[in-house]
């Protein structure tokens, strides 16, 4: 109901503000459309569930044809009230952190373009870290079956309720853009068999991009500041009860606020039938014991008529900053719990993929893809109890039908 009210309010705001500004609003145009993916996957790594991001409460289970990871449906309504004013509402249904398919508000904003080269949007918006990250659910827009999980799968707080301002300026034979955005974070996690909705988080980010005829270069940064994170309080209390200076020190280092920071540089090259996308990202999570790492991805493709074969490589490495602690043998249970906390988000995963996209009809694409995934630690891959999988090697076969309407 809140989402409906938000969407209705935004549409009303757009119309009333356009009227106040003297814009012609007598003939607004409405356009409804959508996108979807019917995706099936199969692997034979016993006891492992493959997820495409940290938000999904499930995915593709071993030795079963699974539809839960990639399948999704989005519906969008766009109202254009004048050349300067428009409003967009988009609902999306996919497997979420609760394990349900309940639709959520993916986008819901009013846009105002006060002059050429400037756009202001207010409402439910998406963060903009990696190329096409704000369209990661639109399978038809992507070359492969899914956006590279080692990078895109780590960013699930990828929506916010706030404002973004974008400026565009011709530069050389291309167009330079700068976007600044911020607001209240939206997005969830499913980690350690628990659904987590960060209570009070703020997102601030910026993106700089230059787009030319064949080459697009981009640099992006975003920081998500979370307050009220009490997930480690039990361990903190237990450590405080241990009369050892080192345990007291570790307890004092556990905070209820944290920063989750991403930075990335990327390049996209499209020349005739050939396309290449490369991304390098750095990320840091300041919550105890603090994690830092990097991710990278390369996708190369070559169009041959309706067929587009491609290869991809992705890798993520995300490590805790140490914070060793040795407790007496009588506290073995606490020692084990502490070590689990320290290692809880370690990630070392890489994947190599090969596939082909077949555009067999306008607005439809069929993709066949095989990915070989190796992970010594991964929060993306989970075991039967929902815990991170360790030392996994699997080959995932995917058949995906993408469409837009």
């Amino acid at each position: 109901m809140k989402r409906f009210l938000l969407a209705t309010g935004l549409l009303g705001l757009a119309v009333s503000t356009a009227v106040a500004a003297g814009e012609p609003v007598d003939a607004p145009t409405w356009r409804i459309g959508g996108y979807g993916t019917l995706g099936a996957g199969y692997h034979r790594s016993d006891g492992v569930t493959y997820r495409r991001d940290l938000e999904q409460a499930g995915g593709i289970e071993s030795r079963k044809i699974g539809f839960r990871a990639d399948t999704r449906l989005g519906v969008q309504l766009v109202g254009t009230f004048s050349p300067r004013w428009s409003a967009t509402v988009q609902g999306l249904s996919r497997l979420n952190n609760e394990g349900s398919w309940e639709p959520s508000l993916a986008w819901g904003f009013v846009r105002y373009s006060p002059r050429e080269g400037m756009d202001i949007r207010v409402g439910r918006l998406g963060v903009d870290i990696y190329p096409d990250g704000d369209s990661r659910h639109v399978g038809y827009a992507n070359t492969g079956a899914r956006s590279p999980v080692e990078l895109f799968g780590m960013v699930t707080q990828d929506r916010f309720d706030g404002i973004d301002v974008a400026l565009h300026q011709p530069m050389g034979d291309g167009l330079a853009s700068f976007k600044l955005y911020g607001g209240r974070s939206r997005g969830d996690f499913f980690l350690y068999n628990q659904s987590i909705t960060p209570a009070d988080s703020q997102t601030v980010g910026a993106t700089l991009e230059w787009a030319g005829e064949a080459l697009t270069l981009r640099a992006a940064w975003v920081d998500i500041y979370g307050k009220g994170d009490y997930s480690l309080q039990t361990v903190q209390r237990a450590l405080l009860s241990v009369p050892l200076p080192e345990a007291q020190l570790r307890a004092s280092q556990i905070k209820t606020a944290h920063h989750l920071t991403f930075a990335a540089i990327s390049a996209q090259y499209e020349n005739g039938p050939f396309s290449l996308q490369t991304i390098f990202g750095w990320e840091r999570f300041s919550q105890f014991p603090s994690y830092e790492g990097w991710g990278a991805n390369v996708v190369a493709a070559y169009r041959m008529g309706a067929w587009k074969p491609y290869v991809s490589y992705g890798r993520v490495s995300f490590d805790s900053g140490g914070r060793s602690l040795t407790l007496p043998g009588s506290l073995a249970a606490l020692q084990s719990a502490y070590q689990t906390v320290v290692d809880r988000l370690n990630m070392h995963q890489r994947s190599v993929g090969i596939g082909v996209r077949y555009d067999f009809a306008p607005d439809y694409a069929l993709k066949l893809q095989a990915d070989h995934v190796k992970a010594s630690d991964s929060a993306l891959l989970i075991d039967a109890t929902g815990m991170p999988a360790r030392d996994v090697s699997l080959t995932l076969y995917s058949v995906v039908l993408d469409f837009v309407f």
Partner: protein
Amino acid sequence: MLVFNRYALAFWLALSCACAWAAGGLAVIVNPGSGVDSLSREEVSHLFLGRVKFLPSGVAAVVIDTGPMRESFYRALVDRGIAEINAYWARLRFSGRTTPPQVMENAAQVIDRVARERGAIGYVDSALVDRRVKAVFELEY
């Protein structure tokens, strides 16, 4: 010898015409009142790929695709097939960035629309351009 030269001349003329016909020309057209006299390839590319929303004169652009010529136009402009262009627009459309050009069924409809609307910009076969619209860029395909 004279007869041979005439045949040779006729042959080369015919060949030239055939090549010109095969290559074809696409004209990007605007309304005469748009304030635009010519556009560069980059400006046309930015407009038709949704990167800019206003004509260089400051008039809000209404970008129009001619359905039957869409493939030829984007191939000639940015060397991309229609599947790539459709995927590109899906990306922009469903991330709330902008809306794709309106697609009209034939050149006559495009010319009518451009002639009526100050900010409209489209493309048609060069041979079809008439006085109601102004050609501001030409592409061979």
